[in-house]
């Protein structure tokens, strides 16, 4: 009787531990992001992405790319980071997954990439061109930022996660929430998504 209890108990422990086992690697990089929706006279021009990395990943990048180890990144060091620690993300849409009126928009390239290292803290900034003309009718756009392999976990900043620039000609609404229609990591995670709606002011 005692043995049976021990058996059941130990099996329960193992099964309980097994429940937390997902398939691929857990995140090793943590990113806190801010998005800025850039408008021009025609409508949406694109998205400025600002990523702040956790200190451990920052240390790794600094180790490899801050060649003179002065704690700051010079232009050639930024170029090295862009080529060796950013450009590979092109295969993953640069982790920026946009839907315009529910249709996926492929991010083929980014511009204005820059990386800074200040007090050991690493930040990337880049611009994702995405032109959507503003009209009298409402345009709906979603921007989900995630690493499909989940090696990196991306969170929105608590303070001012989204901002708008040059949006005076448009009426704009933004909301951030988990998108139940998008799942990653074998259906376990719904990425935090920016829901954007805009139209021309009457």
């Amino acid at each position, binding site marked *: 009787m005692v043995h049976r209890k021990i058996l059941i108990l130990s099996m329960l422990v*193992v099964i309980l531990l097994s429940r937390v*086992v997902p398939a691929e690697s857990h995140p090793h990089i943590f990113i806190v992001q801010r998005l800025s929706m850039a408008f021009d006279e025609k409508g949406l021009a694109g998205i400025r992405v600002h990523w702040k990395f956790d200190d451990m990943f920052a240390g790794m990048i600094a180790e490899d790319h801050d060649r003179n180890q002065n704690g700051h990144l010079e232009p050639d060091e930024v170029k090295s980071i862009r080529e060796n620690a950013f450009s590979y993300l092109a295969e993953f849409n640069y982790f920026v997954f946009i839907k315009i009126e529910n249709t996926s928009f492929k991010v083929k390239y980014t511009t204005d990439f820059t990386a800074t290292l200040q007090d050991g803290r690493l930040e990337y900034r880049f611009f994702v061109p995405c032109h959507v003309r503003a009209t009298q009718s409402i345009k709906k756009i979603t921007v989900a930022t995630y690493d499909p392999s989940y090696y990196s976990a991306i969170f929105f900043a608590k303070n001012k996660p989204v901002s708008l620039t040059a949006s005076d000609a448009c009426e704009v609404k933004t909301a951030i929430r988990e998108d139940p229609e998008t799942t990653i990591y074998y259906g376990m995670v719904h990425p935090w998504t920016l829901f954007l709606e805009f139209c021309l002011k009457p």
Partner: protein
Amino acid sequence: MKKCLTILLLFVVACLWAAPVSAQNPFTSKSETRHKAPPPVIKSQFFIKIIVWQHQIRQKMSDLIRDVQTTGNIMPLLFLVALAFSYGVIHAIGPGHGKFVAMSYVLSHRASIVGGLLFGILTAFLHGFSGAVGVLGLRYILQRGVGETLGSVTTVTQIISFGMITLLGLSIFLKNSYALFSKPVFSQHAQETKASRKGLVPWALAIGLIPCPAVVMVMLFCLSMDAMTLGLVMAAFISLGMAMTISGVVIAVLVGKAGALQIVSRKHAEMIEHGVGLVSGMAVTVFGGLFFIAAVG
């Protein structure tokens, strides 16, 4: 019926642990150098909580390391090693870290509780310190960029590790097939006990050979703060935390196995033991082989 159920239960539980040891960094490597694992058998939202905890602990650790280095204040050290230990425990609950192979080892060998504990400690320290030593070797001996070079080092160690795991799985499979189908099973007890202790090192080596990415990150951060000794201390405590999780899993399986085998007669117990050994050997061979092919490819 009971025996079939026990074997089935052990096999299903063993399969739940099938997970890769690590995937590579998407920032610094091309997708063809990364392998992808099969989907999980069971999904859990608890995993998301673990991610948040890891993030919080890691951020706290880096703040404290910076504090220790810049102020010279050693008071946060105790808290820091406690955090490193907790980080190791939580980190090893996630996928990989050889839990599946470790479970297969104890299912197919007559390991004691102490043996299981040793197995967990040895595996975790090899896994942790292969990361720490790898970083130091690349930086001070080879003088190469760690982040990028470690990717190719990890690929090589993955090939060796998965190759070893496949061979070890095959040896379990063949040994148990032979014991089950060709030889009387009673005479082997003493021999197997000895063999299991002697064979512990190659198993731990096969699992622990691949550098732990978490330890690599902590070590690199400490080096960037010019705190190598602190990095090694942190690596030791993270490894200790991982050892606790791996040993816990191994001991839970050992207790479960002992309980299951005591329900049935000795003759049947040995048959079941060999049956379980055969199935777990086959599972280790198949998964090890699949990951080996993916790593080579």
